[in-house]
């Protein structure tokens, strides 16, 4: 059945992947007969609408699934059962009257309560005009009582207008009006509850609450599952997964962040305590480049969600020591009496090697069908040769959602599903690649170094040639997905 899905107009790239993932979670694809590991929903855009529009039609198997998806999502403003639509109020009336009675009457009964909400997208509407529009719906036989606060049924009259002047929103060719019954919508109250502003223990790269929830949805976090973050830091991503009931585990190479925090009441544990969430099952100090897992350990995690260090605001580290890896010094033998408190030297960890290790870890440790969700930074220049996403034979990439960070670079949330087992060949190839990274330690640090590309000074002469960026068009242009 086709439902009207109205999104919040933000993080445009993240909207549909979230609904697709939640559809998977709530069993929308259970009856699919094809062998494909990953199925997709059918989507339509209403007549005359731009693909970036907040209004979409999606085909879902049942109202129950539609409600579950909408209520758990972060970006679905409302999921509606469409009773009628048209380009004018006359067309709308014809459309609603032709909607079958057995679909309408159960929700109009005299022992129920209802309200009608008028929503206009692209223009402001006065209370008087709203009342008139509601009165114009008298052809629908509402028998119940009106309850504005907590009605049994919430009906929406949604108008999408074409504006002559662009206001920065997606262009609409013609006016379109919808009348629909609300099924469910996102609980945005989660955001002020979990916002970083009031978080107990923060770090410079703590993940924003809204994005953390989106990541947890992409990873299908639910009770009974074990979710792992190899770059846990202050635990901001695991908090979102724990909110949805998953058991969590995290590791970090920096022991001060993971063990000490800023004090006994200001650390990763206190972040979970702040929200009454289940504490992580385990936190450890480990190097993702030389992980401490026992040989033969595999397929333990249901999902791996993380934000690896890009090397821009926070650089990654791995064991070894710079000079050691360059071959400048011999390995330092720690005297026995100093072993306990010895802090091993670490060396810079390039993004390429970091992602290689992450994919290798995920390929080994994820269950079949498990999800790897992580952010990958890319430069925004068109012809950059480095901008293709990491790949691995065990994984299928199912979504990529871009978020702009600065004029120079952005990051993409990649969601991958494990579709193939970790074989001996893959293990061997990974071992060779790991050895190659060690051999060419210096080379990998210089290539693909995001930090210099992001922070290098602007070449003003070049900019003048490219176009006078100083004179701005006074009318706001359509900003595309960078909302």
């Amino acid at each position, binding site marked *: 059945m086709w439902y009207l899905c109205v999104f919040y107009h933000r993080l445009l790239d993240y909207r549909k992947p979230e609904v697709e993932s939640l559809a998977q979670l709530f069993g929308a694809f259970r009856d699919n007969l094809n062998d494909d590991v990953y199925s997709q929903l059918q989507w339509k855009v209403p007549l005359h609408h731009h693909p970036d529009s907040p209004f979409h039609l999606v085909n879902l198997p049942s109202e129950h699934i539609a409600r579950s998806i909408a209520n758990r999502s972060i970006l679905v403003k409302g999921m509606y059962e469409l009773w009628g639509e048209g380009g004018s109020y006359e067309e709308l009336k014809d459309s609603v009257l032709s909607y079958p009675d057995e679909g309408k009457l159960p929700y109009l009964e005299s022992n129920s309560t209802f309200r009608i909400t008028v929503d206009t997208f692209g223009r402001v509407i006065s209370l008087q005009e709203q009342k008139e529009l509601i009165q114009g719906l008298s052809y629908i036989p509402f028998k119940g009582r009106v309850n504005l606060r907590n009605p049994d049924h919430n009906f929406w009259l949604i108008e999408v207008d074409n504006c002559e002047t662009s206001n920065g929103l997606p262009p609409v060719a013609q006016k379109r009006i919808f009348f629909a019954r609300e099924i469910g919508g996102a609980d945005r109250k989660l955001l002020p509850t979990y916002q970083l502003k009031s978080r107990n223990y923060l770090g410079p790269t703590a993940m924003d609450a809204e994005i953390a929830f989106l990541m947890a949805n992409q990873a299908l976090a639910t009770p*009974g599952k*074990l979710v792992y973050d190899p770059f846990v830091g202050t635990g901001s991503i695991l908090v979102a997964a724990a909110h949805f009931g998953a058991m969590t585990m995290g590791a970090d190479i920096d022991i001060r962040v993971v063990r000490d925090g800023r004090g006994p009441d200001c650390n990763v544990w206190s972040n979970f305590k702040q929200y009454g969430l289940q504490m992580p099952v385990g936190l450890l100090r480990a190097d993702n480049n030389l992980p401490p897992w026992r040989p033969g350990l595999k397929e333990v995690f249901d999902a791996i969600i993380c934000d690896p260090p890009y090397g821009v605001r926070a650089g990654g580290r791995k*064991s070894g020591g710079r000079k*050691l890896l360059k071959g400048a010094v011999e390995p330092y033998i720690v005297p026995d009496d100093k*072993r306990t408190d010895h802090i091993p030297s670490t060396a810079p960890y390039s993004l390429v090697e970091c992602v290689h290790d992450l994919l290798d870890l995920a390929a080994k440790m994820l269950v079949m069908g498990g999800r790897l969700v992580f952010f990958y930074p890319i430069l925004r220049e068109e012809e950059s040769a480095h901008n293709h996403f990491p790949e691995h034979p065990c994984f299928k990439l199912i979504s990529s959602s871009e978020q702009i960070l600065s004029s120079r670079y952005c990051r993409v949330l990649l969601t991958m599903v494990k579709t193939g087992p970790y074989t001996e060949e893959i293990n061997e190839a990974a071992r060779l690649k790991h050895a190659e990274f060690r051999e060419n330690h210096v080379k990998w640090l210089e290539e693909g170094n995001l930090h210099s590309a992001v922070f290098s000074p602007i070449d003003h002469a070049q900019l003048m040639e490219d176009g006078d960026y100083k004179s701005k068009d006074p009318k706001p242009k359509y900003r595309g997905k960078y909302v």
Partner: protein
Amino acid sequence: MRLLTHNMLSSNIRGVVNGFPLRIEAGKVVEKNVEINGDFLKNMFVKIDWKAFVEASQSMGYTELPEEADSSMLDSDEFLNRFHHALLELHLEEGALVCPETGRRFPVSKGIPNMLLHEDEV
């Protein structure tokens, strides 16, 4: 550090062949309550190395686990409770994990094991 974590760790010092399981030197053991989740326990049961798990729980002072176990035992509530208790409710706050081959100690402090290798072990 819980026994679930301990069951996944080994000493990966260069050249070491038998780094698993790590011997537990229990300094301070604490018991913390965790809500029981049957699905999670059933998921985890198949991934646990049972022999190492029983040995580890004994070194933490818990002797109620059977020496051998198979998945049919998960139907029994009593077994499930004991499994849950040993897996998730026993914490090693202070102590060390010792490599069975070299004797190298990986310290555990404030419940966090430090598994980072030193420069000469890499």
